[in-house]
Structure formats: structure tokens, C-alpha cells
């Protein structure tokens, strides 16, 4: 990473690790026993744990308006810092807002922002990387040079400056994180395309007179699709950490939106008064990012044909 951040703290944080592990995908030996066929369901416990966590979080984010017991913005200043009770299972925060409702609403902000950023960055990065890796030439030379600069540029600062210039909002955070993740996917896909192109099946297809774009889409594409599932999951893990970090620094989504990062920064300021305000978002954020990571690691051994 984003340790890229983080790593270069968080958004970049995770990045260095991920890029690295991407480069070694072919060498990595998973500890889990390998399933015999691609069609069989993954047997790894890691995959299913991650899948479970991510599904629950996604459901909560989707159904947030129905699940929230109270308005996450409604304040009750006389009951601030109130400890958990039956009416408010997680208690009230420093403005007397219901923490459970804010946590559920925060899933919408943090999870959805992370997923949207990757949803935007992945197609762009894949297109750039495939183009650069398949066509090579000057496009590749220019792109590689730019990616080198991007790697050296402190990632979190790029995101911060972008958000300041676009104005703090969920949309700005999505754009800022996506800008940071385009090179991540471009790098991975470029390396994969170059690796695949050297293999016999591509030479074979060429010898048979297949058109170049057919080779890229029909032959190489399916062979690197698994990689995208794996790194898409890692990407969402990193982008969620990125959103939480930016909001924690006070330069993320709208100040009134209940992002988990925002809840953390408010909670840390009052942690000597009441600890329930900070402890729940910290644990939930960590579990959900861990879930995405496990989903990625787990599907790696399932989807990557070289792993078997």
C-alpha cells in the first residue's frame, strides 16, 4: 500500500503491496488446497468469509434507508454521549445523533464511494493498460513514463489537492480516488497482456491468421479476467481506506454526510469523554476492508489458472 499510502499513507498505502503482489501473481503459492476445476465453487474459507462480510455490508448500504432506526442527522443535544441502550443499541454521539443510524448511513458513503471509484478506475485503467501492453510503441513509452511519475508523487496529496480544487463532496472523492487507481489497473493489465502475448496460444492464433483485436479480446481477455476480479476487490479495499482517510482529515465528503472516516475523526476528538463513539466505526471499517481483501485473496487461488 494503498501501505500507500499508505503509505504514502493509506490510498497509496496499500498500493505498493498490491502492485508487488500483482507482479508476483504467477509465483504465489496459496496455502489453501487448489480446487480441481474452475467451474467448481471456491472451497477456501478465506473466500467465503470475505464474501460474507462484503455481502452483508453491500446489503446494508443498499437497504440503508429502510434499516436506519432514526434520522442519522437528527440531533438531541441534551442526550449527547449517551451510552448504548435498548432504544439506541450503539448509543448517541457528541451531538446526540443515533450512532447505529449513522453507521448504517455511513455504509452508503464509504462502501459506495469505494466501489464507485473502482468502477470508474477499472475500465479506464484496463483500456489504457491493454492498449499500452498490446500495441507497445510510443504510446507505451509515454504511458510508462507518466506512471513512474505517478508512483513517485505522494498519492494522498494528489487526492487532497484534487478534492480541494473540486470542492468537498462524494463526487469529488470518487474522482480523486479513481484518478489514483487508474494507474494501478493499467500497470497490472499491461504486465498481464505482455506476459500472455509471449505464450504459445497467442503465437498459435496469430499463425492461424486471427485478427489482432480478436486475439486481444477473445484469447488474452478471458485469461486475464480473473486478475481483474482479484485486483478489483483489493482496489475497493484500498479505495474504502482512501475515502475514510480523506474524510478523517476533514477533506472528504460533505461534512454532514455520515462517512465512517468522519465519524472516526469526530470520535477521536471526544474519546476521553466517551469511547463508544469511536470504537464501533473503527471496528466496522476494519472488518469491511478486511472482508474485501479476503475476497480478493480468496478468489485469487480460485480464478487464476496458473495457481492450479
Amino acid at each position, binding site marked *: 500500500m494503498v501501505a500507500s499510502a*499508505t503509505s504514502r499513507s493509506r490510498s497509496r498505502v*496499500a498500493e505498493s503491496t498490491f502492485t508487488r503482489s500483482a507482479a508476483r501473481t504467477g509465483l504465489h503459492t496459496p496455502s489453501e488446497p487448489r480446487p480441481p476445476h474452475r467451474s467448481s465453487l471456491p472451497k477456501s474459507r478465506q473466500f467465503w468469509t470475505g464474501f460474507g462480510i462484503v455481502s452483508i455490508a453491500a446489503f446494508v448500504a443498499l437497504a440503508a434507508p429502510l434499516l436506519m432506526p432514526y434520522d442519522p442527522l437528527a440531533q438531541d443535544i441534551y442526550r449527547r454521549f449517551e451510552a448504548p441502550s435498548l432504544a439506541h443499541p450503539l448509543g448517541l454521539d457528541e451531538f446526540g445523533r443515533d450512532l447505529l443510524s449513522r453507521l448504517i448511513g455511513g455504509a452508503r458513503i464509504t462502501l459506495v464511494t469505494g466501489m464507485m471509484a473502482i468502477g470508474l478506475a477499472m475500465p479506464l485503467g484496463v483500456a489504457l493498460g491493454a492498449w499500452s501492453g498490446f500495441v507497445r510503441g510510443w504510446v507505451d513509452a509515454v504511458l510508462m513514463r507518466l506512471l513512474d511519475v505517478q508512483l513517485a508523487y505522494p498519492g494522498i496529496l494528489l487526492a487532497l489537492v484534487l478534492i480541494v480544487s473540486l470542492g468537498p463532496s462524494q463526487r469529488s472523492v470518487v474522482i480523486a480516488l479513481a484518478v489514483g487507481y487508474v494507474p494501478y489497473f493499467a500497470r497490472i493489465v499491461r504486465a498481464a497482456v505482455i506476459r500472455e502475448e509471449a505464450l504459445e496460444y497467442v503465437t498459435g492464433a496469430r499463425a492461424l491468421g486471427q485478427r489482432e483485436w480478436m486475439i486481444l479480446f477473445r484469447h488474452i481477455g478471458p485469461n486475464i479476467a480473473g486478475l481483474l476480479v482479484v485486483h478489483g476487490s483489493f482496489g475497493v479495499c484500498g479505495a474504502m481506506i482512501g475515502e475514510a482517510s480523506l474524510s478523517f482529515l476533514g477533506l472528504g465528503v460533505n461534512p454532514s454526510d455520515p462517512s465512517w472516516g468522519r465519524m472516526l475523526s469526530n470520535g477521536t476528538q471526544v474519546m476521553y469523554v466517551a469511547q463508544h463513539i469511536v470504537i464501533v466505526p473503527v471496528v466496522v471499517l476494519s472488518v469491511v476492508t478486511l472482508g474485501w481483501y479476503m475476497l480478493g485473496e480468496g478468489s485469487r487461488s480460485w480464478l487464476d489458472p496458473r495457481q492450479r
Partner: protein
Amino acid sequence: MLTYMARRIPQMLPTLLLASIVTFILLRLVPGDIADVLAVEGGVSDESKEVLRAEMGFDDPAPVQYLRWLGHLLTGDMGHSYWTNLPVSELFGHAFPKTLQLAGASMAVAILVGVPLGLLGGAFPGSPFDYLAATLATIMTSVPTFAIGILALLLFAVQLQWVPATGSLALPAVVLGIDISGNLVRTLRSDVRAELRSDYIRTAHAKGLPTSRVLGRHLLPNALTTTITVMGLALGNLLGGTVIVETVFNWPGIGDLTINAIRNRDYPVVQAMVMVMTAAFVIANIGVDFLYGLVDPRVRV
């Protein structure tokens, strides 16, 4: 070494130049400048705003402003803070020792935790070390560092009251160190496992060397190459300041200086700190390449 450095350092200039142009353009896109901020904060009139802008050279075309800034930088002048009017080099001089302190302490923690755990975890598959190494690597990659920092604060500063919440080096150093050690462990563990299958290890065992000697003298030096890259890049990041951890622990280093400058629209400071961070990263890269040659004579620098 000197000739090597003399050859490599010019190669980093295009990267630094591009990074500075990107920063410059992005900062010019920000709506509202320092004059507007001052007008809101201090009730400056419209005429004074114009005078201020003229004084600071905002009326010149952007390329002129950029070249002026670059010219000053080349003569060692990083400019003055809009906010405090102190020279940026002075602010940097205050913040950098703090960042250096934190970086050194974190690296020490990372190496002390990461290298033994990675070595033992890799050398003894299925052992408790292996399990611990795998768990640490997964958690440290996937859980935000600042979340771990907050939990550490809650436990050691609020509950146990062993350390103060601000100003203590121990807590941020341990949190950052453990975070980096996750990367070290992951790399070292898999490299140790790959080396374990080599012939020279079998030979070393066969001639009756004790396991500790096989691991420490024969295996570790060969398995360390990739780990050195990871360490070098981590150090490069640390020297550029860690914005989030410094914020969580109120540590007045480079990261803290930069985030405050961003909040205050204090562009000379932001611009200079981006240069510092980028340079730290690029220099760390060069250092890593150089170290390769020392550890592995097969690699010529």
C-alpha cells in the same frame, strides 16, 4: 558510490519537474486564493485584496509564476508561507527532524518485528510463526493504519494511560512500524520459502550445519533482496511524512505541516512539501538499487 550517485541523480530530475508542474496546475485550479481566505478570516477589503494579489505576483500569467517559483527553488529559496510569512525552509527545518525521528523509530520496529517473523514463518511452514506471519501480513495490508492507530490510542492512552495521547514517539512508531512489518513479513516469508528448496540449502543441511546457521548465514542473505526494496520504498514514504498517522497522533512532522498548508491554501508550503516527498521517494529508489549491489554481487549498479 559517488560516481553512481552522480549518474543516477540527474535521472530523477524529469520526475521532479513533472511532479512540480502537476502540483502547480492543480493548485491554480482551486477556487479562491489566499486573498479570499484572508478576506473571510480577517475582513480584508476588496482593494487590499487586489494589492495583496499584485504583491504576491498572482496577476502574472501562470507560466511566469511557475518559472519564477522554479528559479527561486533552484537558488535554494523555497518561498515564504502565505499564512505566517515565515520562510518555508524554516518550517521545513522544524518539521523534518520530527519526521526523521518517527521514520527512524518506525523502521527499527518494522525490522525488529518483520525480519525474524518473516524468516521463521517462511522457514517453518505450518508452525505458529507461519500462522502469525500470515495473519500479521493480511491484517496490516487490509486494515487502515489510522484505525489501528486509533485503537492503540484508545487502549494505551485512554484506558491504561501509559502514554500521553500527543507528543509521545512510542505509539506512532510502533503503529507505523507494525504496519510496515506486514509488508516485510509477506515478502520475506514467500522469498524464504522459495529459497528453502534450493540446492545450497540442502547441501548446508547435509554437511551437518545447525539449522540456525543455515537460516541466518546461508538463507537470509539470499532471501533479503526483495525485502530490501520494500524497506527502501517504505523509508522513502516515511521520510516524506505520513499524513494520516501524524494527524492521528498530533505529530508535528512533514505530513502534519502539509495537511495544514492544504487546509489554509498555503500554496508555497504545499508546493515545496510535494517536492520534498517526491524527492524522498526517488532518492529511496536510487538507494535501494545501490544496496542491491552490496547485498547481491550478481547485480551490478
